[in-house]
């Protein structure tokens, strides 16, 4: 008993300097909050200018692809979405998953683009929370009520990147994670059926894009 108490004390003592340095980290983050806010401001403006431009669909898709790969932590989101099944997957399946996810994300964004035709966005406050820096925005599509969209930003490899989009309280990456987990659990915990479904969907998107 005494031993255990002592080890708890040691652990606490060891934790103290860590907590202290964490304090330093959070004060350094004040800069990151404004960086995150300006990232959303510029990304949002670029996004809307692509959506509202009169360019051809194929040109728009290429612009959106560059925008997504430049401002979103695509690999991080992909890993988050697969969650605990990442370790179940073989290295070949992991590579396949990553590549397919990257492509699907661009098609998903392109498919959503038409819904936001004529939209405008107001960037509100930004604050640090558990999941990252959350930037509040209000998106208005003509003829529809204003929507609250929150963008979650984290510093990945020294660069601010978008890691999640929360529309009216529903997180895109959590929804996606539950969707993919649904497929895997319906197939006895196997990752391959998910990959098959992803390939199938990608083929469908490609067919729609060319046809």
């Amino acid at each position, binding site marked *: 008993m005494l031993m255990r108490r002592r080890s708890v004390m040691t652990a606490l003592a060891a934790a103290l300097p860590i907590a202290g340095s964490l304090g330093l980290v959070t004060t350094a983050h004040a800069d990151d909050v404004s960086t995150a806010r300006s990232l959303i401001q510029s990304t949002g403006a670029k996004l809307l200018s692509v959506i509202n431009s009169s360019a051809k669909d194929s040109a728009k898709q290429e612009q959106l692809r560059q925008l997504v790969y430049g401002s979103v932590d695509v690999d991080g989101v992909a890993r988050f979405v697969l969650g605990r099944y990442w370790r179940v997957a073989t290295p070949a399946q992991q590579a396949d998953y990553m590549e397919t996810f990257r492509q699907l994300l661009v098609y998903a964004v392109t498919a959503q683009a038409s819904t936001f035709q004529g939209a405008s966005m107001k960037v509100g406050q930004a604050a640090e929370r558990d999941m990252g820096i959350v930037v509040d925005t209000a998106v208005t599509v003509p003829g529809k009520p204003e929507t609250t969209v929150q963008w979650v930003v984290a510093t990945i490899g020294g660069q601010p990147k978008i890691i999640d989009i929360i529309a009216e309280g529903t*997180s895109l990456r959590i*929804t996606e994670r539950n969707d*993919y987990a649904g497929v895997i659990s319906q197939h006895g915990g196997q990752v391959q059926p998910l990959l098959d479904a992803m390939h199938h969907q990608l083929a469908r998107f490609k067919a729609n894009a060319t046809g």
Partner: protein
Amino acid sequence: MKSRIWAAATLAAFVLTGLAGCATKPPASDPEALAAYKQNDDPLEPMNRKLYAFNNALDTYAMKPVAQGYKAVVPRPVRNHVGDFLSNLHTPVVFINDILEAKSRRAGDSLVRFVVNSTVGLGGIFDVATGLGYPSHEADFGITLAIWGVGTGPFLYLPVLGPSDPRDAAGFGVGIVSDPFFWVGEGAAVTALGYSRTAVTIVNTRADLLKPIDEVKRMALDPYATFRSLYRQHREAAIQAVRDDHRATVPDWFPQPKQAPAGALAP
């Protein structure tokens, strides 16, 4: 009115008796799978998936075509006014729940909305109140129960009604009987009006959701799991919005207490 109570009771009996079937709980040797199972909180998943398939068929062959027809005939502005009119009829229920949630500012918003929209807004056809700074908000007895500390309970997929949980299902029942219009008047005309209101509400709402629902079905690899996730997150956000509404009941000209911290979820 009585027939509607019967319809609700039959529905409840249908849910409680038939279609049994439970998801198999993962063994304790697989803690991650067990954690995921608990997080999904969907022990009736096999039954729920069957009901999802049933609702999906019902929607594809009945509700969606009707909504599409309605959308083709009725232009967007008219549909918006129909929506405003129906939501005004529903405002008393929102008001009652604002009171039960002990959120006086929200109750005040609802009261102003009902009075302004019923008069200046010509019986609710025009939503004047939103422009005056009184936008609509969500409140129902399911949210009220959550504020009172009642737990969510396992996920339920109800026939016809769709995604729910025991708390929201109870809330739905209370929602019907707590609607003042449910108790107003007698006779065939009133009953017919009640049915028409329900029917128009369903069709108008479904027409509004044509694109979002199609979009989810097109993009999701497992639409059932996706709808489950969306429903849960949406309800949790609605409950959180009530919890985070700390607006004080102090007149504008009086020294104001401190505002909610920056970055809080917008009401």
